[in-house]
C-alpha cells in the first residue's frame, strides 16, 4: 500500500473527499480532468455539481465530485 493512501486514509472507499482543481472539461463526455495537490490528474465525473468551470476546486471521492470546495461554494 502506498504512503499516499496511508497518509490520506482510504481515498477510494471511505468517507474521504480530496480537493482537486479542474484543469479541463470534456463537454461531450461530461467528465473533467482534475489535478490534485501534487499535480496528478484524473478524469472526474461532475454530474452532481454541474456546471463546473476550469480552475474551480472540487471535493472528489471515488472519481466523482461530491461538492465544491468551501471557498468555491461561497463564491457562487
Amino acid at each position, binding site marked *: *500500500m502506498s504512503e499516499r*493512501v*496511508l*497518509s490520506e*486514509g*482510504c*481515498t*477510494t*472507499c*471511505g*468517507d*474521504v*473527499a480530496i*480537493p482537486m482543481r479542474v484543469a479541463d472539461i470534456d463537454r461531450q463526455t461530461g*467528465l473533467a480532468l482534475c489535478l490534485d*495537490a501534487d499535480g496528478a490528474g*484524473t*478524469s472526474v*465525473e461532475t*454530474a*452532481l455539481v454541474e456546471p463546473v468551470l476550469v480552475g474551480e476546486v472540487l*471535493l472528489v*471521492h*471515488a*472519481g*466523482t465530485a*461530491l*461538492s465544491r*470546495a*468551501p*471557498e468555491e*461554494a*461561497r463564491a457562487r
Partner: protein
Amino acid sequence: MKFVDEFRDAELGRALAGEILSVVDPDRHYKIMEVCGGHTHAIYKYGVDDLLPENVELVHGPGCPVCVIPMGRVDDGISLAREPGVIFTCFGDMVRVPGSSETLLDAKAQGADVRIVYSPLDALRIAKQNPDREVVFFAIGFETTAPSTALTLRRAKAEDVGNFSVICSHVTIVPPLRALLESPDVRLDGFIGPGHVATIVGARPFQFLPEQYGKPVAISGFEPLDLLQSVLMVLRQLADGRAEVENQYARVVPWEGNLRALEIMSEVFELRAHFEWRGLGFISQSALRLSDDYAEWDAELRFSVPGVRVADPKACQCGEVLKGVIKPWECKVFGTACTPERPIGTCMVSPEGACAAYYNYGRFAREREVV
C-alpha cells in the same frame, strides 16, 4: 492550503481542548462514537484523543466500508474473480480482505484477473477497452460512494456497455446506528456524524438520534480542529441537557444533502430486505441492490454467486471493535497474529479501520502508557 491549514492550527487546538475541559463533568465518563472511519483515521493521525480529558472516550463506529463486509461476501467476490474470462475490478483495500480461505490478492496470484481501480469509471473504461471480456466491479461503500457507482451504471446503460456488471455491496449508515443503539452491550452518550456521507444524504437523516434516542450529534469535518470542535459541540449539548443535530461541517454539508445524487441513487438502487454486517449480523434495509431498470448490469443475476454465510474466525474480535465494546488493543490478536501486513480481521485492513489506525499511529503511545 486554504481550508486545511487553519483547521490544523495548534494554538486554536489547545484553546478548544481548554474549552472541552471546562464543559465536562469530572465525575462523569463520556462515550462519544465517531461513526466514520475517516474520522477514526484522522483522530489517531493527529493525536486528537491525546487532547481530550481522560473521562472523554472516543468510540470507533461501523463507518469503514471495508471493515463491515462479511467474509461470505468476500467469497462471493473471489468466486466471480475466478469465473473464466472475467476481469474483476475493485478498490485497493478489498484485495487484502480475507475470505474464508483466501483473499482476492491470493486469487490474483493464482491467475485470476483482479485489477485495482480508483473509481467505478475506471472499471467501465476497462470494460470498453476489453469488449470480449466480462468486467465486474465490486461496489462497496456508504452513501458517499454509492452515487459514483450509480452514475457509472447510468453511463453503462446510456452507452450500452453490455460486458460490464456490478456486485453491489453498498451499505447505508442509518440502520446500523439504530442497530447499535438497540444493542444491550452498547452505551453511548453522543455521536460525531460522518461529514461526507452527510454531503450526500444531508444532516436531516441523523435527526432520529436526538429525537428517538436522545443522543446529541455533531456532523463533523475531517481536520483536527473540526473534530475537536465537534466533540465540544456534543459535550455542550450534554452539559445543557440538549439533544439535536448540529452541523459543524456546514462549509460543505447542506442540511438537505445533494438532491441530484439522491435522485440518481433512487433511480439506480433499491433497498435490500436484509444485509449481513460484520460483527452486527443481519440488519434490515441496510444495503442497496440494483433496481429492476439496471438488472441487466447486476453481476449477482448474470453469474452464479455462492451467497454462503461464513462465520468470522474465532480469534477475531472485529465485531466487538465495530460496536465499540472493546478497544482494538484489547483484541487477543491485535498487533501479534493480526497486523496490516497479515490481517485476520477487516478492521486491520483499511487505513480507516480502527485496528489499523491504532496500529499505524497509536500503538507506540499505548506502549509508553503501559510502561
